[in-house]
C-alpha cells in the first residue's frame, strides 16, 4: 500500500545512509556559495546606492577641503587631480573597478593647498579602526549573546513568574533609554563607585587585557542595549513551540521542564533566534557611533562620521561598503544556522 516499500528501494536506503554526510556537507556548501554570490550582487547594488547618495550631498568637495579662500583655479586643479571633473558614471565605474581589485582609493584629507601630499590609502585608515570595532563587538557579543540566551531560556522556563517579569522589565528598561544616556549613567556610577576607566581610548600597542579593561564600559553599554531584543526573541520562539503536540508528548514521557525546553523546544527555535542575533551583531559593527563618541573609542563609526563631515568621499564609501558586507555576511550565517538546525532541509526525503 501507500507505505509498503518496493524491493527496489532497499539499496537506496543503504546508500542514503552511507552518503548522507557527504551530501549534507555538499548541500550546505552549495547554499553558502549561492548566498555568497547573491551577497556580491547585493553589494553591487549597495555600491550604486552609496555612490548616488553621496552625489546628493550638498556643497563642493574641493571647496570644502581647500576652504573658502581658495581661488577658482586651485579648486579646479584640485578637482581635476581627484578626478572630480569626470562625469559621475565614469567616477562610479573607476571606483567599483578599483574596489573589485581590493583598492579602496586614497583619502581626500591630508592634501592641502600647500602642495605637500600626506594623504593615506583608505584601507590604511579603516583597517586599524575596523579592528578596534570588531574587538569591541566581539567582547560584547561574547557576553551579550550567552546572557541573552540564558535569560530567554530561563524566562521561558518560568514564564509568567516573578523572575520572568523582572527580567522582561529590566531588559525593556535598558533598551528604552537612548544609548548615550545609558552610557553617561554608567560613567557616573563608574566615576562614583566602580573605578572603571571612563575613557576607552585604546591604542594599537596596548596589551590585550588592558584593552579589555578600557573597553569594559562601552561593552557594558552595548550589552544593555542589545540583550533585550535577543532575550525576548529567544523567550518568544521557545514559548511559541511549547503548545506543540510534540512538547506535550515530551512532557508525557516524564521529561523535566528544563529538558523539555533544552532538548525539545530549543532545537526547533534556532532559526528565528539566529536571525535576531545576527541583526544585533551587525548593529554592534555598524551602529555604535554614539557609544564610540561618548567613550572616545577609536572605532570605525567615528571615522565614518568624521569623513562625512570633512567630505572625505573615498573613506565614506569604503566604510559604507564594509558595513553592508557585515550585514550580508551575518545574515548569511543566520540563514545557514537556520538550515543546519532544520532536519527537513538538511535531510530531504
Amino acid at each position: 500500500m501507500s507505505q509498503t516499500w518496493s524491493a527496489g528501494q532497499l539499496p537506496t536506503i543503504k546508500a542514503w545512509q552511507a552518503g548522507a554526510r557527504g551530501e549534507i556537507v555538499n548541500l550546505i556548501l552549495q547554499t553558502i556559495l549561492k548566498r555568497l554570490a547573491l551577497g556580491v550582487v547585493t553589494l553591487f547594488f549597495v555600491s550604486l546606492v552609496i555612490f548616488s547618495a553621496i552625489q546628493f550631498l550638498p556643497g563642493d568637495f574641493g571647496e570644502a577641503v581647500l576652504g573658502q579662500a581658495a581661488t577658482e583655479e586651485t579648486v579646479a586643479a584640485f578637482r581635476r587631480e581627484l578626478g572630480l571633473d569626470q562625469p559621475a558614471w565614469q567616477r562610479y565605474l573607476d571606483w567599483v573597478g578599483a574596489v573589485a581589485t581590493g583598492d579602496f582609493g586614497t583619502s581626500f584629507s591630508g592634501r592641502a593647498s600647500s602642495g605637500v601630499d600626506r594623504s593615506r590609502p583608505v584601507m590604511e585608515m579603516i583597517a586599524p579602526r575596523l579592528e578596534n570595532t570588531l574587538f569591541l563587538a566581539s567582547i560584547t557579543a561574547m557576553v551579550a549573546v550567552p546572557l541573552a540566551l540564558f535569560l530567554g531560556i530561563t524566562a521561558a522556563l518560568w514564564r509568567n513568574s516573578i523572575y520572568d517579569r523582572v527580567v522582561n522589565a529590566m531588559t525593556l528598561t535598558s533598551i528604552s533609554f537612548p544609548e548615550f544616556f545609558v552610557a553617561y549613567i554608567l560613567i557616573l556610577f563608574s566615576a562614583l563607585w566602580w573605578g572603571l576607566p571612563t575613557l576607552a581610548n585604546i591604542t594599537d600597542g596596548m596589551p590585550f587585557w588592558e584593552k579589555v579593561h578600557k573597553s569594559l564600559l562601552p561593552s557594558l553599554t552595548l550589552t544593555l542595549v542589545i540583550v533585550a531584543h535577543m532575550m525576548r526573541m529567544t523567550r518568544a520562539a521557545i514559548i511559541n513551540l511549547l503548545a506543540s503536540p510534540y512538547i506535550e508528548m515530551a512532557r508525557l514521557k516524564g521529561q523535566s521542564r528544563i529538558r523539555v525546553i533544552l532538548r525539545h523546544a530549543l532545537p526547533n527555535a534556532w532559526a528565528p533566534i539566529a536571525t535576531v542575533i545576527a541583526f544585533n551583531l551587525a548593529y554592534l559593527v555598524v551602529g555604535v557611533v554614539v557609544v564610540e563618541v561618548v567613550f572616545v573609542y577609536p572605532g570605525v563609526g567615528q571615522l565614518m562620521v568624521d569623513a562625512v563631515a570633512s567630505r572625505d568621499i573615498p573613506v565614506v564609501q569604503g566604510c559604507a561598503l564594509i558595513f553592508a558586507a557585515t550585514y550580508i555576511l551575518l545574515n548569511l550565517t543566520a540563514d545557514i544556522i537556520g538550515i543546519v538546525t532544520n532536519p527537513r532541509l538538511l535531510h530531504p526525503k
Partner: protein
Amino acid sequence: MSEDSKQNEGKAGDILLEMRDIRIEGWSDEKWNPIIKGVDLTLRRGEVLGLIGESGAGKSTLGLAGMGFTQPGCRITSGSIMFDGIDLVKATDSEKRALWGSRVAYVAQSAAASFNPAHRLIDQTVEATVAHGLQGEAAAKDDARELYSALTLPFPETIGERYPHQVSGGQLQRVMTAMAMSPRPDLIVFDEPTTALDVTTQVEVLLSMRKIVEEFNTAAIYITHDLAVVAQMADTIKVLRYGKEVEESETRQMLTAPKEDYTKSLWSVRALHKEAQPSDDIVLSIDGVDAAYGRGLKVLHDVNIKVPRGRTVSIVGESGSGKSTTARVITGLLPPMTGQVMFNGEALPAELSGRSKEQLQKIQMIYQMADTAMNPRQTVGEIIGRPLEFYHGLKGAAKEQRVLELLDMIELDETFYDRLPSEMSGGQKQRICIARALAAEPEVIICDEVTSALDQIVQEGILKLLMKLQEKHGITYLFITHDIATVEAISDEIVVMYMGEVVEQGPKDEIMSAPYPDYTKLLLSSVPEMDPDWLTKLAESRDDTA
C-alpha cells in the same frame, strides 16, 4: 526489561486504574466550564477499555486524566484517580513525571505533530526508557528495533535513523506505538491513533497495535469516535456524551444490544441506505483528463468519469488519489494538460476565467471545512445573498425573501438570517454552505468531503438533507469522500480512484459486490465493520492469500 522491574508484578485481573466521580473543568470564555461531569472508570491489568463519543464528549480529557495529566487550561476539581495505589490527583509533578514514560505511556492522534522534527525516530523512541533509567541506551535501541520489527515496520534495523518527516503517517503511528511500548508500561493511552490515516493503512496499524498490546499484556485506554474501530481493539467499551457516561459494557454486548438510543446513533450513517437508480442521461463528463500542479508530477492520468443527471456519483479513494484534483479540474481552478470537461454536451473552457456566468452558475461546490469556506465577518443573510445577487440580480426584499426560502430548504429557521458563522455549530455551518450552493440554482454540486469533519449523527442529518434536495430539485451530486459508509448511504454510482487513476466506475451495487479489481477489494475490505472479529478474520484471510 530488567528483572527488578516493577511492571507486571500484579496479577492479571487486578485493578490497575480506578477513577471515582472525576470532574474536570476547562477555562474558556472567561470562566471555568465543566468538561467531565463525574465519571467512574475501572481498568484492570491487561484490559483494553474503549472510550467512545463524539467531538466534545470529553474522551481525550478523560483519557489523559487516566495518566494524571491535564492539558493547559484544564483542572481536576474533584474525584480520585488511583493508579496502582498512587493517587494521581494528589500526586506532585515529580511523582507524576516518574510515572509518565515509564509506567504509563501515550500515543497521540497526529503522529506527524507529536514527533519532534529535530530528532531521529529511534532517539525519540528510547528517550523515556533511557531517561527513567529503565535500560541503557544501547540496550533500549536494540529493543526498539525489535519493537519496530514486531510492529511490521519496513527496514526495522534502519528506519529509526530517519527523521519524522522522512516516513509516512502510518509508519509514524507505529513508531509512536513502539515509543509508548519501549519502557514496557502498565498502561498505554491511545488517543484516536488511526483517525488521521487512510482505511487501508488503518488496518495495518490496528493489527500491529493490537498484536503488541496482547503480546505484552499491557492495559490500554483506546479513545476514538469510530465504534467499528474500537470494537476490534477493546474488551469493554464506555460511551461518553457531554462529559458523562452513557453506558459501559462488554464489546459484543454493546454492539448487539446497546442499552441507550444514543449509542445506536453512533453508527447512524451506516444505517442510511439509498437504492441506486441507473440513468443514461449524462450531464457532466470528464474525458481523458491529465493534470499536474505547476510543472510538477502528473497527479491525474487519463481520468474518465461520467455523471448522470439527477444522480449521485461518489468518488472514493485515499489521500493522494486525485479526488480533489478532479474536482479542481471540473470547476476550472486547475486547467487540465489534456482532455476536457463536457457539460450538457458542450466542452467547458478549461480556465475558470474563460467560463461564462451561466456555466459558473451551473456547477457549484461545497467544501470540507465549512469554517474556512465562509467569511467569518458576514452574516448568513450576506453569505447566501451574495450568489443571489451575482447570478440572479436579486436585491432588497426579493433577495431577503429568497434567502429565507433557502433557509427553509436546509431546515433552519429565519432566526439564522442575522447570525455570524461563529454563532453556529459545525453541522449548521455546513448547511449554510449547502444553501449558498443552492442559491445559484446549479445543476451539479461537487461535495468535497463535506461530512468528514462532522460527528456521525450530524453527518446523517446532512446526508439526509442532500438526498431530500436531490429528490425535490433533481440536483446532481459529485460526492468526493474517503468514507465508504457515506458512499454506501448516498450513491447511485461509484468511482474508485487510486494514484491519480480511475480504477473502476459503475453502479453502486456492482462496485460493492464481487468480483473486484484488486485495489477496490483492498479498499472495501479495509473498512472496519461492526463485528469484533472483523479484524481477526481479515488478517487471517489476508494471510491465506498472501
